[in-house]
């Protein structure tokens, strides 16, 4: 700060799901913002990698990349999906109560165990989109 090197900082994604590489707030241990990184591309390559690594540890939200199946069972929906963390099966309650709309194309799915999954519609394949459109 003021030209002095600052240690012991942490990073906050201000838009963790919709803008995972932009608007990153750099804060001191006493919660003061010292800088807002508008975009990761502002930084040099090695810093980018360091930031990404740190963020990956702080934000553990798997992204759904493909939907294999969505089946309804009683009051629950069984999901079989491929995520950035690998294959996983989970359950949700009523979709309209457990899917948060972040933007026209980004959604958060909350399962019955309290886990959260991010979903970007445009990144889904055709089959997955068919499943998705039935649900939403």
């Amino acid at each position, binding site marked *: 700060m003021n030209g002095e090197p600052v240690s012991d900082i942490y990073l906050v994604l201000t838009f963790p799901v919709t803008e995972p590489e932009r608007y990153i707030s750099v804060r001191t241990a006493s919660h003061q913002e010292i800088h807002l990184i508008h975009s990761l591309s502002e930084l040099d390559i090695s810093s980018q990698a360091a930031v990404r690594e740190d963020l990956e*540890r702080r934000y553990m939200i798997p992204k759904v990349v493909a939907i294999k199946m969505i089946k309804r069972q009683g009051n*629950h929906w069984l999901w079989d999906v491929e995520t950035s963390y*690998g294959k996983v099966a989970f359950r949700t309650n009523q979709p309209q109560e457990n899917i948060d709309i972040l933007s026209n194309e980004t959604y958060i799915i909350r399962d*019955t165990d309290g886990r959260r999954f991010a979903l970007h519609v445009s990144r889904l394949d055709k089959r997955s989109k068919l499943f998705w459109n039935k649900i939403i």
Partner: protein
Amino acid sequence: MEEAWLTLQGDLNRNMQFEQLQVLFTASKLLVLDREGRQILHIPKQNVENIRLIEALGGGYLVASTAKGPVEILRFTEMHLDSCRKALSRVEQWVSKDSFTTDKRNDLKDRNKTCAHCGRVMRSAKDSCMRCNRKWSTVSHLLQRSRAYSASMIVMGIIVILTVLVSLAPPYIIKWIIDGISAPVGMGGVSSHLLWMSGLLAGIYILQALLQMIEGYTAISIGGRFLGELRRDMFHALMKQSMRFFDNRQVSQYIGRINQDTDTIKDFMSQGIVHLTSQLLSALFILGMLFYLDWRMTLMILIPLPPLGLFVMRLWPKVREMWYSQWQSSIHVQNMVGEALQGIRIIKAFSKENDEKERFDKANSRFVNRMISIQNLWMFMTPVLTLFISLFVALIWFAGGRKVLEGGMTVGTLSAYATYLIMFFGPVKWLAQSASWINEVLGSAERIFEVIHTPAEVTDDEEAQPLSKVRGEIRYNHVGFGYAKDRRILHGIDLHIAPGEMIGLIGPSGAGKSTLIHLLCRFYDPDEGEILLDGRRLSSIRQEELRKNIGVVFQETFLFDGTIAQNIAYGNPEAEAQDIIQAAMTANAHDFICRLPHGYETKVGERGHRLSGGERQRIAIARAVLLDPPILILDEATSSVDVETEAAIQEAMDKVIQGRTTIVIAHRLSTLQRADRLLVLEGGRLVESGSHEELLNRGGVYHRLLHAAQGASGREVWIPMQEVAR
């Protein structure tokens, strides 16, 4: 091998991929095992300096510090976060103590009961598991409910059977008539036979009409009562739910659900069941008739039934899905209306009417499209089925006609046969079409039962005892709480409030002041620790009784649409006019009420919008006063009112707190100075406690908050605490 005294589950491996992992803690070491139970990490206890839990968004890590540096031992998503949090203090003990008693306490597991049926963790300690609710259980719930109507149902059943039997007669009588006419016997015999038969036919038609009338009457009475009871139970179930139920849901939808879903069921109970049984019965009876008339021809016409059945079965899930998505979009439309109306001031202020209209139109047209596509499906089905049946009738006329020509059948039999055939396909067609209706009904029923059967989250102990005279001693024992799993609001709150003490609660916004109060009112239960009232755990006191003893004045004062008197008497509807006036006087509300032309009978309007903020607040105070509770909770409004009103409210508060245990979320210096003791909350922790002077002299957080406030405003009376946060 040593027995593990603690096992923690994780679900992510080093490469950030899902994998079931677990850490075992034994007396002398910790072990990390992978999915197959292979040991992938092993650290002797003496090498562990400490173990930390690092919480991330959506999960966390357990990290062990060793002489060689930190070692990550477990990584997990949100589902395991809570059990790790709870285990942490014991793990810390294990690390720090040389001789750790390795009693295998299973409390971590026992807290979450698992369902015997599906093996999953149950959300509520009571009742059945909500997760393994099957399709059939909806049907069985419906049947269970119908049991109350068994008498009417039996009457109905008899009428239905009679109707079906009666409706079978005409074609047979017509057969006799035709056979009688076409058989060349003596003319006199035929005409008397004709008279008798026609008379019989007329009689049957009259009987049929009568039966239909009785049937309709019974059906409507059953359906109506059923509707009433379902609605009642649904509303009761909503009232029973805890706050978290409403936090997590869009509430407007329940307005629609309570009306539409129950209406669908009513229709089904009053008409659907009658139709369903009568159609099924007629199909069976007619089939018997057909076999009786000519079994060979009947076998022939049965051939297309299996493929038809298969077709309906295949369509079934599709239709279910379509109904669901139609319902989904109708709820969406409803929520949108609800939200827009609640936020109408903001919409107008930002002149967003057109955007809202657009948003609504989009949702509405989606709803319409979905409705159309379901209807289309059946629009297509009906002509196809009709065509199918007509072709068969043609076929029968051909095959039967040849039989008549060959002398194997009379003309009357053939005519009866053809009529029965058309009658037979009637119910078949209806049953095939009703697939859609049944799906709609099942969907509605399922959603209703979901609400009715969702157990309340905050429950009382079964042996909850009645509350005798409350002294008002409050104790928080190491209370921790968060509204969502990933954000803790309160951490380890230890607090003792003596009976009659006046406590001022202060701290920057988001420090957990209101949450502390919510827990005392038992809107939520703490995740950790316990709260005692007069030495009794809150859960051992019935919620109703607890709340009767706590008067609350919230910052946002909600008034119900009704008169001022009704609003003041909300907690105690039996109150006499005199008590209401007394309460209003104590709350310094009496004078302004007297200035209103209708006095205490002035309608406040929805949410009390016809009154000013200061007026609403004093009514809320009067409401709490009338309840005369031993414990009083006041959340001082942060919004500024004029000095005179301010003084009136202040004076009211002074009168009200006499002789009660009072907790005030304070925003005004005068309140702070008057309190017996101040509690300063910061970041969910209790950081300071003492009187105004003590804390001021200490020069800690309180000093900082107060100083900042005064510096900012230059006025000593008003501390806008919300703006002083940090």
